[in-house]
């Protein structure tokens, strides 16, 4: 091999090594929460946003409460996870509540803080450490008029066994939300949102 040939080979080898190393470097980038992004067919944060947006709008516009003038009091009893995945559905109910609070037309009972409220009230009255004039007045909590509850369901299908290099799978999610009048037990409003997604995964890798 000539001297220039050797130099070219060496240069190419170093270039390839740099390219390979750069390819292996860990990278990060900030993603906008509003950007729709899916790595696979499974439920992710983009779905949560879509679900919340799709259900809050009709609740604000078409539900019997849309024109209520007295800011009705609602309690959220959570969203039951009936899927085959460990999905934290409290994130969905928290976001729905937040959007409705921001709309300024409803009030919400803080059900998750009930024990803490009771403990704090008990402390104010029984510890002897709280000035009497600053104690909160008891028996002034508001009763809820409506229950907001829901169910997240999923159906999953995989391609049947056959000779292939990729495997397709289909996932369908539906979130059903309903508003129950506590006084009459009637469901006053219900709506649902659906998401269906197909993904393809390689069967063979290195």
């Amino acid at each position, binding site marked *: 091999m000539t001297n220039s040939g050797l130099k070219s080979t060496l240069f190419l080898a170093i270039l390839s090594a740099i390219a390979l190393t750069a390819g292996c470097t860990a990278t990060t980038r900030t993603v906008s929460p509003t950007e729709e992004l899916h790595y696979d067919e499974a439920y992710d944060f983009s779905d949560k946003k879509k679900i919340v947006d799709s259900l809050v709008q009709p609740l604000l516009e078409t539900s019997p409460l849309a024109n209520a003038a007295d800011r009705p009091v609602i309690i959220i009893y959570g969203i*039951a*996870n*009936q*899927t*085959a*995945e*460990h999905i934290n559905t409290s994130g969905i109910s928290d976001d729905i509540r937040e959007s409705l609070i921001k709309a300024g037309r409803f009030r919400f009972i803080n059900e998750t803080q009930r024990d803490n409220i009771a403990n704090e009230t008990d402390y104010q009255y029984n510890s002897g450490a709280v000035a009497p004039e600053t104690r909160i007045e008891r028996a002034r909590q508001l009763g809820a008029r409506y229950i907001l509850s829901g169910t997240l369901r999923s159906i*999953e299908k995989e391609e049947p066994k056959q000779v292939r290099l990729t*495997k397709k799978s289909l996932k369908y999610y539906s979130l059903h939300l309903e508003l129950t009048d506590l006084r009459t037990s009637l469901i006053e409003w219900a709506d649902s949102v659906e998401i269906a997604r197909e993904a393809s*995964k*390689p*069967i*063979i*890798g*290195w």
Partner: protein
Amino acid sequence: MLCIFFAGCTAAPLRQARKAFYSGQSAEAVNALSEAKNFPNRDRLLLFMEKGLILHHLGRYEESANTLLKASELMEKQEIISISQQAASFMTNEWITDYKGEYSERLWVHTYLMMNFLLLRKYESALVEAKQSLKILEKHPEPLSKDHFTRALIALCFENFRQYSDAYIEYKKIAENLPDPSPVAPRIYEIGMNLGFREEAEKYKKFIPPDIPSILNSQFSILNSELVLFVSIGSAPEKISGSIIIPPSIRFSFPQYEDKIADDAQVSLAGAETPPFSVTTHIGNVAKASLQDRAAKIIAKETARAAMKESIARAVEHKNEGILSVLLRMAFFLMEEPDTRCWETLPAYLKLFRFPIQPGKHRLKAVIYQNGIRKDIILPQFSLSAGQKYYYQIRINSGSAIGN
């Protein structure tokens, strides 16, 4: 070459942990696995399986669930076939590849997760695992058909959410795979009648054991309070090496489960009047059926490997490399080790008992008979309101019974 030979060994922390677990030193077993450094990636699934199960029997259900969820996640990733590992295994043996678990072991990851979540009273998460279990049962219906314990556990998870039609389907599947449907007949009859499937339910009426006639005239008893016991007995059979040698130097090796008869045990509740609902899974039988279901694949790969090794040895022989060819044949012969990795802390039997009990405060005693020896386990005091369930698990190894 040394690496290839060493590949045919189970990771040392796994051996230590299994030994400690069966010597009654479960905490030491967990430590051996937690402190393992440079643990081989190929055995990582076994690490999660063994650690998850030991933590379960220590009553550390949250940690056990987290560990087994890692196993579940890994199983999903392992669905991609690695070309590099498969190519290397053609020249050496299966020990060089990632251990993916038998179908039965993959199912039992979800079974133990279900138990953990029920013991933690996380019923929604238990239902998620029930659905994951169903996916595996649907994929491999034949080899897993005798896992009555997992099916009954799935039915229980559905019952917890009053999804009785789903529970009914599972009980019927158990009945179809039992030689005598008596253990699940009361359940099928009861749920069937309440769902309005009278004609079908009536067919199971004749299988209801005579000592539980109360079901026939009582109210919907599945709404009653219950003590649910998960009982694990003995140790499951391990995989051993099987070989066929074709002279002069071709060796076909394959894994097989050892024939091991474990001592069963009778479990009852002191003072209980009503016989419990109970189903049993014989772990060894289901594991053997799962391995058998893969037999065709194992034989095909083994044949291809033997053919490849033989053609390489002949090519070397053809070049008159006498000593080299002999050494190569010897190396190939010794390398031909079957993959005998398996989940070794599994019990020989998994039993599910459901004792109907009255609502209120209870301090109960489980009575265990094994080989004529009685062992009593005092359960912690608990209170139940109408329709509630209390979950408890017991592991019976030779000479000891521990509950949590």
